[in-house]
């Protein structure tokens, strides 16, 4: 978005230098293993960091993260130009669910909620199980494979684009290109135009959605797209931009997160062979094991919001115009909720984890994500009793959004 004459960038009052921490929240070190930081922060009041020349507050305690994620009048989801989050404008200014407050949020969320309720997800379960089983059979022929590029990513593409959206395979690249392009956003300098590859992918997606609306109006089907179109049309005719916005946020919200979490969970289990063995010997531990994987390895280290009015959190002043990073990852290490937080214990069955957020913006796809994790991890560990890291000393590289821990290379052996 272009800055307008009337933009309002509040001047932040002087902040206590003692409350600043000199740390790069987006560093490869934090992505690779955030636990030393989380252990330090999870029982402490908020602190400040400088990002792109502006002070940000970082909130880490379980209760405080939950508060910050749910008090939208104080901590708003609506981005304000010049407040320091322009580099996180993944969606080119589209009115996505994640970036609106009530009442607009309530309206938009209602349009999407029906697609991912527990009951709806249960209807996908058979398809999910079959896709996982089919993919595993192709891998069984090999002794070694990459968890990310040969299992998690193709699986989640297939599930979202095929099983959920029911798009023909020939059209999938429109969305896969777009999802790669989203990562380019954070790489351009502040104020610079979006990268050309991003705009190209964006426009291709927009065009596809326009055509899709036409097609479904001509030939209605009993599928998710038709139901989204119908939900919108009740309150006025759906625009191309609205359908595109809905699909891109479901897709972008689901693709990397689910495949990344599959990777992190498998990696965690392989690095703790005793816990892996426990799960293999007692498959009834699967749900508890996955909750523990989700707790200890939250794909998102942080989510950000915009401070709409001054507040004080645990003695730390946070001013209007600042950005807040709420650490879901650290909240999952709060020792008041999770004793010995650094211990990976698949019998812990942790409750109230923050991995999927909290409150108004609580992840719409969480039941779907859990269903995919159950099928993916459950089947891998049972089908391959000897599943292990091909080379435990191999360095895992992390990509994804700056705030995410997306593992890119996890080589497994299964012979």
């Amino acid at each position, binding site marked *: 978005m272009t800055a307008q004459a009337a933009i309002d960038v509040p001047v932040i009052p002087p902040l206590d230098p003692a409350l600043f921490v000199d740390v790069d929240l987006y560093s490869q070190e934090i992505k690779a293993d955030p636990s030393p930081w989380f252990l330090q922060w999870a029982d402490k009041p908020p602190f400040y960091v400088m990002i792109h020349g502006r002070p940000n507050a970082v909130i880490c305690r379980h209760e405080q993260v*939950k508060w910050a994620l*749910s008090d939208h009048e104080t901590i708003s989801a609506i981005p304000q130009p010049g407040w320091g989050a322009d580099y996180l404008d993944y969606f080119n200014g589209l009115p996505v669910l994640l970036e609106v407050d009530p009442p607009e949020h*309530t309206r938009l*969320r*209602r349009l999407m*909620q*029906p697609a991912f*309720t*527990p*009951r*709806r*997800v*249960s209807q996908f*379960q058979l398809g999910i199980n079959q896709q996982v089983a089919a993919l595993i059979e192709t891998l069984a022929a090999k002794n070694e494979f990459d968890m990310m590029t040969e299992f998690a990513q193709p699986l989640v593409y297939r599930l979202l684009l095929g099983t959920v959206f029911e798009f023909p395979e020939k059209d999938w690249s429109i969305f896969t290109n777009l999802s790669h392009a989203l990562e380019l956003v954070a790489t351009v300098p502040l104020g610079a135009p979006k990268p050309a590859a991003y705009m190209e992918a964006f426009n291709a997606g927009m065009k596809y959605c326009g055509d899709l609306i036409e097609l479904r109006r001509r030939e209605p089907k009993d599928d998710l797209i038709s139901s989204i179109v119908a939900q919108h049309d009740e309150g006025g005719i759906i625009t191309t931009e609205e359908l595109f916005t809905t699909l891109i946020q479901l897709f972008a919200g689901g693709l990397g997160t689910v495949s990344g979490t599959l990777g992190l969970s498998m990696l965690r289990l392989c690095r703790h062979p005793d816990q892996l063995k426990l799960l293999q010997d007692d498959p009834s531990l699967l*749900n508890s094991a996955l909750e523990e994987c989700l707790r200890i390895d939250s794909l998102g280290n942080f989510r950000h919001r915009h401070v709409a009015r001054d507040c004080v959190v645990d003695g730390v002043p946070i001013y209007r115009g600042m950005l807040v990073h709420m650490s879901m990852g650290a909240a999952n290490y709060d020792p008041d909720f999770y004793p010995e937080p650094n211990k990976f214990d698949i019998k812990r069955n942790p*409750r*109230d984890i923050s991995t*999927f957020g*909290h*409150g*108004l913006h*609580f992840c*719409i796809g*969480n*039941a779907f994500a*859990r*269903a995919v994790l*159950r099928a993916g991890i459950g089947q891998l560990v049972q089908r391959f009793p000897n599943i292990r890291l091909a080379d435990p000393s191999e360095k895992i590289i992390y990509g994804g959004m700056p705030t995410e821990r997306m593992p890119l290379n996890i080589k497994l052996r299964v012979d």
Partner: protein
Amino acid sequence: MPKIIYELSDGSTRTIEANAGDNVMQVAMSHDIAGILGRCGGFCNCGTCHVYVDAQWADQLPEPAFDEDALLSESAAERQPGSRLGCQVIVTEALDGITVTIPERQEFD
């Protein structure tokens, strides 16, 4: 202090003293009562705090609002006449003794 009586799916019962203004999901979570997940934290956004309110109490509650009604229709356990989302049931002195049964599931697996 209004009491909430939870009937668990294993047949056991837990009675908890709550404060007026608390909701049935939050009280269950803070007392480690099994079978209520409350994943979204009480924002009518997940449908994993489903309970069956006993008929004598169900009639005294305000009707479910739009979002609660929509989630109940899609819940993992069957919707019954007393079905409510626990996070939307606020206890008051008048509801002292409210009895809720926890369904056998909140999610599919």
